[in-house]
């Protein structure tokens, strides 16, 4: 499966989903006009990719500076799908980066860790 790449814009993150390398990255800002439209494609491609792998390790790094409420909902769906892949025998490693001042992003990461225990979760506090 091919790599999926979108360059960052002022309101959407860099999306570097290197499926062949099993490395996924979201980096930047996330407050598109329609989060459902922006993340719909990402979810579909990720789901199709996860359908093709068994007993593999996938690393996902999230380095978002800010995401709005509708992006939050879509990120939750993305991790729901990744958790399913983990329950099916894959190893999913999530590196969750948050600014040291940003308790909202840390709290959301902890929610993900609680709801999706099959995902290996690592929080990283970044000094601003």
């Amino acid at each position: 499966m091919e790599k999926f790449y979108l360059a960052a814009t002022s309101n959407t993150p860099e999306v570097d989903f290197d499926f062949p390398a099993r490395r996924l990255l979201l980096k930047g800002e996330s407050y598109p006009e329609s989060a459902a439209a922006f993340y719909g494609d990402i979810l579909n491609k990720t789901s199709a990719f996860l359908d093709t792998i068994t007993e593999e390790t996938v690393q996902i790094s999230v380095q978002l500076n800010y995401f709005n409420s509708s992006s939050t909902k879509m990120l939750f769906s993305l991790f729901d799908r990744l958790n399913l892949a983990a329950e099916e025998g894959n190893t999913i490693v999530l590196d969750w980066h948050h600014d040291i001042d940003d308790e909202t992003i840390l709290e959301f990461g902890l929610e993900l860790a609680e709801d999706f225990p099959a995902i290996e979760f690592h929080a990283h506090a970044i000094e601003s």
Partner: protein
Amino acid sequence: MNPPAEHESNKPCFPGLDPHLIFFYAGYFSQNIINAIGDAVRLRLEQTETSGSARRKIFSTFIEMAQNIVHYSSDSLTPPDQATLEMRAGSVMVSHVDGTFHIICANPVDPSFAEQLKPLLEPLRVMSMEQIKDAYRKTLRAETDENSKGAGLGFLTIAKDSSAPIEYGFEPAANNMQMFTLKATI
């Protein structure tokens, strides 16, 4: 003799207007306009002696409010059924009084939409912070409401960041619309 030099951050930003005003925009909102004024709000807040945590909450509240205007204001330059590149009217204001930030938005809404908003907003005024966080967690996990262009999480996100209960109002406006106002405190 000259008066003592005023501290840079105490200088009124907008001559002739309330000196507590940090940011004000009234007019048409689109996603591109939000990107641009969002940058201005961030930079303006960086000049104030405000913690990174408070600055992030103010920015988040500002974006949620501005995107609500783009999605839900009844005063639309673009066709009402157009789902992207929308442009709709409203206002957002950030003021700073005695160490507290007030973020207030306003936009006209259809009276029937006003009736849909009230039962969403009123509970948020009486809920404790724990209850708000609980409702947030539940809504995050619930299926998305079909009528919602966002995630239905927007008001909860605003209420979660507000240090005082949110305030809202509906007043009669032009063209038989209701002027919706919402205020958060950080």
